[in-house]
Every structure is written in structure tokens, then in C-alpha cells.
């Protein structure tokens, strides 16, 4: 495979994408929605920052030697949490829009036969097409992030070095998510003879892995984990129940922690809590395994770890001892390594299928 031929194909594909009407329209829509939600995110961030300053002043005014509680400073990464929901919808559509007719259109217009008569190998064509598409999605992602950072700076919100690194990681994860659907669309475009069919097959897979699969995961968890343990008939001990919830797009999660403070916990309740913990972990394991096949769910999980590591830490210990300290970005990413791996494996499998199919394609 020669680099110059590969780049020739990739450059043409990239140029075709960024000048196509459909790409410009969807990207424009993505950027407009991005601008609005980032603006709202910045407003919320400023409100949180104001509340944090007040709490800090309050703590300093009433110096309580017995209290070690300190308010936590809000992170600008909360601004990016709002990007997740529309990225999964509009970003997914953008990825599908640039991929679904990449090969099928060439078959329909017979330009593939003309191209193949010139000195280049088939793998250079398919790799060049993939590279051009990845470039176009990368370009869209860079534009969206550049816009977000520009807005932060306009509103005098300057990210720290750590936050800047988190923004870049968030961008990379979002690009990984877009590549998942681009790879699906490219595969369907290679398999199908007509672009219309390729689009339909891609949308079927899109909705299956984004909506149907998480639902099946929940149903499987219900079926395999059985009924939850029954609580003891004795009265519930005094305690504190803390609930944390996070939502984005289709995805809502909530975790609860029950902590007994009086030190006189009933042994039956302790046993019940242990059983409940095992039950929840079992359910969660089944659901998580199923969700690994869904780029949406993996994206949400990893993106939450990047934008809000604290929630991720609490979700990770739903019925155990929660970490009181905010975990670092590296720690949060370490917890979701399987989801990161799944985000890499999913498009890789589809790209590999595309490659094999394209190399064996009948071009008569």
C-alpha cells in the first residue's frame, strides 16, 4: 500500500464530505445546538461558582474547629455534560450521513469500476475512504470543541491545564463514539447494492444498539438475577439514605447508599444489606455486559467519567463505601476501561468487516 495513493483517495473523500450539503447542514445544526447548550452550561457553572463562593465565605465566617467539611469547587466540565445528549443523536446522524453511501454510491454510479482501472489497490481505496470520513468527523469534533472553548473564554472562564486535558479526552471519546456509527454505515454501504438499503440497515443497527440493547440488558438482568431479597420484618434502623442521580439523553442512573450511624445495626438488616448488595451487583453485571455492545452506553459511561468523576465513583460503589474525596481523571478513566475498550473494539470490528467485504466485492 503506497501512502501517496492512500492520501489521494483520503483527500478527495475528505473534501467531498466537508463540501457536501448534507454534512454542512447537519454540522451547522450540531454547532448551533452546541452553542445554545454551552451557553446554558456556562450560566449554570457561574451560578454554581457563586454558590461555592458564598459557601466558602460562610465557612470562613463561622470557623468551626470540629467541622472538616469544605464545599467542592464546581468544574467547568459540567458544561460539557450537556454536549453528551445531542452528540449521541446529531453526532450519530452526522456519522451515518457521511458513511451510508460511501461505497454503494460508487457502485450505483459505476465510478468504482473506473477508479479501479487506475493503478491503485482495493485496500488503498477502502482505507482512504475510511480515513477521509474519520478526518471529516474529526474536523466536526474539533470545530465543536473549539467553539466550546471559545465560548468559555468569551465568558471569562479559563480552563486549568487538567480541565483542558479533560476537554481533549472528552473530544477523543466523542470522536470514538462517532466512529462507531460511521463504521456501521460504511459496512452497510459496502454490503448493500443500493444506498437506500444501506441507510435503512444502518438505522436499524443504530436503534437496536442504542435503544433496544439497553432494554434487553435490563430485561436479562431481571430474568437472570431473580427476585430481590425480602427485607427483614423488624423495623428499619436509623440511617441516612443518600441518592445521587445523573441523566443524559436516554440514560438515567441512580445510586443509593444506606449508612447506619448509631452503631447498633440489627444483624438481620446487615444480612439483608449484604444480600441486596450481591443482588444489585449481579443485576448490574448482567446489564453492564449487555451495555458493552452499545456505543451509546459506553459513550455515556466514559463521558461521565471524564466530565464528572465524582458521580462515576459513586455509581461504581452503589451499595458500598463511597469515596468521600473526588477521584482524579486517571482514576475515573481506569474504572471505565472496559467501556473505553468497547468503544475501540466496536468500530474496529465493523471496519474489519468492511475491509474483508470490499476486498472480495464483485465489481462486474
Amino acid at each position: 500500500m503506497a501512502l501517496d495513493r492512500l492520501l489521494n483517495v483520503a483527500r478527495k473523500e475528505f473534501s467531498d464530505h466537508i463540501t457536501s450539503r448534507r454534512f454542512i447542514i447537519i454540522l451547522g445544526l450540531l454547532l448551533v445546538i452546541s452553542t445554545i447548550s454551552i451557553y446554558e452550561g456556562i450560566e449554570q457553572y457561574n451560578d454554581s461558582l457563586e454558590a461555592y463562593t458564598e459557601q466558602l465565605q460562610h465557612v470562613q465566617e463561622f470557623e468551626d474547629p470540629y467541622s472538616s467539611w469544605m464545599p467542592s469547587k464546581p468544574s467547568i466540565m459540567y458544561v460539557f455534560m450537556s454536549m453528551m445528549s445531542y452528540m449521541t443523536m446529531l453526532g450519530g446522524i452526522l456519522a451515518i450521513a457521511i458513511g451510508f453511501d460511501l461505497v454503494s454510491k460508487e457502485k450505483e454510479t459505476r465510478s468504482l469500476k473506473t477508479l479501479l482501472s487506475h493503478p491503485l489497490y482495493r485496500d488503498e481505496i477502502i482505507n482512504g475512504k475510511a480515513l477521509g470520513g474519520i478526518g471529516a468527523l474529526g474536523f466536526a469534533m474539533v470545530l465543536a470543541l473549539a467553539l466550546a472553548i471559545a465560548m468559555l473564554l468569551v465568558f471569562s472562564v479559563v480552563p486549568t491545564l487538567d480541565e483542558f486535558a479533560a476537554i481533549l479526552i472528552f473530544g477523543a471519546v466523542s470522536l470514538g463514539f462517532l466512529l462507531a456509527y460511521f463504521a456501521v454505515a460504511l459496512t452497510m454501504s459496502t454490503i448493500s447494492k443500493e444506498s437506500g438499503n444501506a441507510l435503512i440497515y444502518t438505522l436499524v443497527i443504530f436503534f437496536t444498539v442504542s435503544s433496544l440493547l439497553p432494554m434487553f440488558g435490563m430485561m436479562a438482568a431481571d430474568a437472570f438475577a431473580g427476585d430481590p431479597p425480602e427485607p427483614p420484618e423488624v423495623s428499619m434502623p436509623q440511617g441516612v439514605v443518600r441518592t445521587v442521580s445523573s441523566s443524559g439523553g436516554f440514560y438515567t442512573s441512580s445510586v443509593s447508599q444506606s449508612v447506619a450511624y448509631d452503631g447498633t445495626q440489627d444483624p438481620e438488616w446487615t444480612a439483608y444489606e449484604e444480600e441486596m448488595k450481591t443482588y444489585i451487583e449481579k443485576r448490574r453485571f448482567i446489564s453492564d455486559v449487555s451495555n458493552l455492545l452499545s456505543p451509546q452506553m459506553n459513550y455515556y459511561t466514559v463521558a461521565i467519567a471524564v466530565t464528572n468523576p465524582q458521580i462515576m465513583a459513586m455509581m461504581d460503589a452503589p451499595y458500598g463505601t463511597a469515596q468521600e474525596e473526588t477521584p482524579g481523571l486517571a482514576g475515573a478513566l481506569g474504572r471505565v476501561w472496559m467501556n473505553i475498550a468497547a468503544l475501540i473494539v466496536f468500530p474496529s470490528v465493523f471496519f474489519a468487516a468492511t475491509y474483508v467485504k470490499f476486498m472480495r466485492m464483485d465489481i462486474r
Partner: protein
Amino acid sequence: MIRTENLTKVYNGKAAVDGLDLEVGEGEIFGFLGPNGAGKSTTILMLTGMIEPTGGRCFVDGIEVAKAPLKVKEIIGYLPEDVGFYGNMTGEQNLDYFARFYGMDAGERKKRIAELLELVHLDGVAQKAGEYSRGMKQRLGLAQALINDPKVLFFDEPTANLDPEGVREYRELVTHLAGEGKTVFVSSHILSEVREVCRTVGLLAKGKLVAQGTLEEVARALASPDGDAVRIVVETREHLPPIEDPAIISVEGNGNRAVVRAKADIRDRLAATLFEQGLHVREMRVEEPEIEDVFMAAYRR
């Protein structure tokens, strides 16, 4: 320049090309004839390195195509049947994209593309290729086949979408290219098209080469299913008496005119016999079968 040895391509257990042995010399204009589905396009796809043969080998300029398809593609030009282009690009942009695969620099590309667009009368056309008529696409197809100044040209049904003026220009172009020493391989199912430009032909039927040579040689080889029978037309001023000769197979007579089927050309003997009988011969000739009829019969076999 072009050679195949037992070339075979099998699709789903059925041979599209079956043990093809073919040879085309340098500078020849070779017509590859055959009905639709005979395996002409499949043969061209193997010769141009776009598909691999199931069996056998093919060579272009001494290079084995399956082993070095890119080397072959660098010295050939191919005009596919129903040629397609990128509809969002102009003709010039399409040609520029293809020219880049030959390592031509920007100046070289610009010069070559301008020459070719002028040659096919598409210079100054600013339309996108998606808006081209079929004839315009065919002309652009000719230009893209010539982009690398190839030694060998493969044209698959080249006149299918051309108007009469386009066909005339295409014929002139092919003759001109052959004059430059290029080998031209024209695949078509239209005999009249091939006989206009081609010096030698090969007839393919059901994946097999039925005959190869000049048009007359092929026609003769295909002409008679009953050996070397010669048809002699005889016409005299007087009524024709019964004709007898050991070489005669049959005589179909009608008054003063007859068609004699003989094992050999016996016109001299026949003329002497008629003269001895005092008959005045008005016409005596060997009847050549119509080439179209011969090919049509071969297509149907």
C-alpha cells in the same frame, strides 16, 4: 502485446470464461466479438487486473497481470461499458483525480488534461459530471482512458452511447491511436462497429473462443457447417441442362439460373462444359456468405 493462456473465470460454479487462448500483436486493432453474456467483459476485467482469474494466465506487454496488476494498469487505458464518474466533480476534476495515481506533477496533469478535453470536445464544459449526458460521459471516459498515454487500450462497448458524429470521431481516434503504435482491444457485440475499425477479430461464445483472425478468415471458418462446400452461382442465356461433375454435391436450378454446391471451386470445368454445350454464360461466381449472417449463426450456436 496481449496474450492469454487457458484463461478461465468461474462464477458460482459456472465458467464465464472457459480456457481462453488469445494473442493480439503490437499495434493491432483487435475486435472482440460475441453476444451479450459471452464473457467479453469478464475477459477484459482479467486483462486489466481488476479481477483475478480462476485458472490460466494472461499477459500484457509480457507482464503477467495477476502477479503485477499495478504495473499493467500503468501502461493500459480502460474504457468500461457504461463508464461512471464522480457526479459532484467537473470533468477536469475527475481527470485530475485519476491522473494523480500516475505520479504526474501539477503542470504535467494540467497540460495533459487540457489536451484530452480538447480531443474529446469537452474543453470549456463547466458542468459537473453528474449533469453530463451519456454521450458526454462516454467521451470523458475516452479521455480518462488516455490520461496516462497508454501502450494498450481496452474499450468495452465504446460506441454504445455515442451519437453518429461521436461514433465517427471515435473511429478516427482509434485509427489515429493505432497509427501511434498503440494496441487497441475493442469489445463489442455489434459486428458493423468492429468491422469498421478492427483489423483482426476474435469471436467469443459461451466463454470460449470460437475463431480468431482477420474478419474474412473468421467468416470463412464459421461459414459452412458442412465442411468446405463452395456455392457457385451460374446464369446462362439459354435454359440450363442438367450439370454433372464428380465434385458437385447438389444443384438448385431454376430455368437459366442455378446455385451449385461443390466440394471445390470447379468454375473452370463448369465453364468449359457449358461452352462445349453451346451455352452462353452470363454470370458465374463463387457466392460468399454475408458476414453478418455467418456471425449471427455463430452467435446462435
